[in-house]
């Protein structure tokens, strides 16, 4: 081990910041509701707040997976198998939705189906279909990122050989004997992730549906009145029951995905990177609509921010104006300005970066060091750092809120940095997952060689290690900034003070202003546009550092 103090510091800090709040929250909820696991789960069906929520959550998540795969696989096939002009630009456009904050996606789809757009949201079948389409839009990049590298780098001799064998004479035969077995781990892994994201979807459900709830949005709605002894005890039971179900389903999905990812990695080494691909003009019938699909909600956000719709007794009229932007960036009695929200978001993101990056890096380094001397302990720590993945952002928000109330309620309501705790909890596991593979692939002879050149530990750290990990560190940093700035679920639960308002929260607050105010939609979309541009800039800057064949979600 390089430094046991680094290891101890990392594990203690991680436990304090990430595990303790969740533990305290659980303790608080059980203190109110009593310990009865079956009773908590049973309460989901007995309570009018939660009746039918689990079914709705599962049905919409399942349909979202089916639609995402139906759209994503043909696109991945086209991108992987054929040569396209501006290939990396097309890939960036198609994978961009995944990095968009969910609230921006919600605003985009609302602009299309809401009052200022096609005005078809009031129909249940319309909003339900829109929710499924929005989830497919959001998760499309997962299918592309998981499947496209397998398709694009597979040695063409494998298919050519199969064509000459009886079982590979037909397209179906080749699909059955080559492509489906090869792609299946990637497809199922992408399906698992899509299921997880759709299952825990909050902003899209909150805004696109008319009052329907998933487990996640229900917990967010009722969470604020939980944890008070003797008050609305049933809500605590519902939260505990929903958390257990959600945690179990997420854990199972993540375990399945991790297992499939390993199988997928075993398939990838057979690939070759020097493949001559042909053009496919007919493929534009798939790729072009896909590009339009990917950018349409984002364009809708931007355009709607300049479109004002006024309604009075004589009817409604629409005109172009920057008034929505002016409204958003001016403070009112009830809302801070978008400038304040932007400052808060930037502040929270930078502080999150300052904590999560070193913490995640130290944890990754500890796991890497332990792998060489105590592999079992390394595996345990690895799983420990992944635990927050199985806890949704709303659950994390509730954990922070209830955990801090358990320690000191007054302090919680006045501590500006409270949302940072949630953001650190959400981002640190991602940092570990990005940096750990980079540490694993770092050839130890680089360090050995530097030692034989007489370089001290500090010199080796600054001159060798940091530059060699530069790409992963930059991707992690940008990821932290983007995730923190776009984070909605946990912030929505935790924000108890208008001084803490972030960009996603102010979008939600502005959009909640009654529609008779003509600035509601354009102002919310103006702030969404700002958040969208920030996410885009951050996304484009990571693309340069992404390994060609990483294929994963990050």
């Amino acid at each position: 081990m390089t430094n046991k103090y680094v290891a101890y510091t990392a594990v203690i800090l991680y436990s304090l910041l990430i595990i303790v709040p969740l533990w305290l929250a659980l303790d608080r909820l059980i203190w109110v509701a009593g310990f009865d696991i079956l009773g908590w789960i049973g309460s989901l069906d007995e309570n009018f707040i939660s009746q039918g929520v689990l079914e709705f959550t599962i049905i919409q998540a399942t349909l979202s997976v089916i639609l995402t795969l139906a759209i994503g696989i043909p696109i991945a096939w086209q991108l992987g198998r054929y040569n396209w002009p501006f290939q990396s630009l097309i890939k960036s456009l198609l994978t961009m939705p995944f990095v968009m904050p969910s609230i921006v996606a919600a605003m985009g789809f609302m602009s299309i189906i809401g009052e200022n757009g096609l005005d078809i949201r009031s129909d249940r079948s319309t909003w339900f279909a829109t929710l499924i389409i929005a989830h497919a839009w959001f998760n499309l990049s997962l299918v592309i990122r998981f499947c496209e590298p397998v398709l694009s780098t597979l040695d063409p001799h494998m298919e050519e050989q199969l064509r000459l064998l009886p079982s590979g004479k037909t397209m179906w035969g080749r699909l059955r004997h080559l492509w489906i077995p090869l792609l299946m781990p990637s497809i199922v892994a992408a399906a698992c992730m899509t299921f997880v994201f759709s299952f825990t979807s909050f902003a899209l459900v909150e805004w696109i549906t008319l009052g329907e709830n998933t487990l996640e949005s229900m917990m967010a709605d009722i969470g604020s009145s939980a944890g008070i002894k003797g008050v609305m005890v049933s809500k605590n039971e519902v939260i505990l029951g929903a958390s257990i179900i959600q945690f179990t389903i997420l854990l199972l999905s993540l375990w399945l995905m991790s297992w499939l990812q390993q199988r997928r990695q075993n398939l990838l080494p057979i690939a070759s990177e020097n493949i001559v691909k042909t053009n496919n003009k007919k493929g534009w019938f798939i790729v072009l609509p896909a590009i339009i699909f990917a950018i349409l909600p984002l364009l809708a956000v931007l355009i709607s921010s300049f479109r004002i719709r006024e309604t009075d007794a004589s009817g409604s009229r629409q005109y172009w104006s920057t008034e929505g932007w002016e409204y958003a960036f001016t403070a009112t009695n009830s809302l801070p300005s978008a400038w304040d929200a932007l400052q808060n978001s930037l502040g929270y993101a930078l502080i999150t970066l300052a904590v999560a990056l070193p913490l995640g890096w130290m944890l990754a380094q500890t796991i890497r060091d332990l792998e060489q001397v105590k592999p079992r302990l390394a595996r345990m720590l690895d799983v420990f750092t992944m635990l927050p993945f199985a806890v949704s952002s709303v659950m994390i928000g509730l954990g922070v809120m209830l955990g801090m109330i358990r320690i000191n309620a007054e302090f919680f309501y006045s501590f500006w940095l409270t949302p940072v705790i949630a953001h650190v909890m959400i981002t640190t596991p991602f940092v570990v997952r990005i940096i750990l593979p980079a540490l694993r692939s770092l050839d130890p002879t680089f360090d050995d060689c530097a030692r034989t050149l007489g370089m001290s530990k500090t010199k080796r750290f600054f001159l060798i290690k940091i530059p060699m990990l530069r790409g992963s560190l930059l991707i992690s940093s940008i990821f932290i900034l983007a995730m923190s700035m776009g984070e909605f679920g946990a912030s929505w639960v935790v924000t108890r003070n208008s001084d803490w308002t972030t960009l996603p929260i102010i979008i939600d607050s502005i959009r909640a202003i009654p529609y008779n105010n003509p600035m509601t939609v354009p102002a919310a979309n103006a702030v969404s546009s700002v958040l969208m541009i920030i996410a885009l800039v951050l996304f484009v800057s990571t693309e340069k550092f992404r390994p060609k064949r990483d294929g994963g979600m990050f």
Partner: protein
Amino acid sequence: MLECENLAKSFEKDLFGGFNLKLNPGEIVAITGPSGCGKTTLLRCICGLEELDSGKIILSGNDITAIAAEERGIGLIFQKPVLYPHLNVEGNLKLASKHGDIAAALSEVNLTGFETRNIGTLSGGEGQRVSLARALLAKPSVLLLDEPFSSLDVELSDKLVNDVRAILKERNCPAILVTHNRNIADSFADSVISLK
């Protein structure tokens, strides 16, 4: 100059035990032996990258057995050139000596004008020459070479063997070469030790 007294090391099996060596200034010794006999581990122990089970290493009269690799002043050239991809040739050389004469070091290994070359554009032989230039820039008391010629084709390997030997002799730098190729050992070293 360098004395190895009763060096012993074992992992899952005994690699070497009771190994003794006396190396004088300017002397070049080759150690040969079959794969897995512990040649590379022996070099790693001498330069401090691995710990010995027992034995003593004395350099210029000082016991360096417990000193960290970076403090020993012993250079090592690996089997495949270890060049840092985030730095160009000059950057790699500067890791050994910030104010050293880079141009002269490159000229010594017949790579004049390679300062700004990207590491990825170097051939195997060029990479190994850069490694040698860098190792020599650090002014090592002893240079260890871990089969640096094995990944090169015969013609290039022969040329590099002669060039490196000439440079080491000119600098009066003692060296230990580890190789499984008896012909290379004979043409490079003054004496050959066989490890079993």
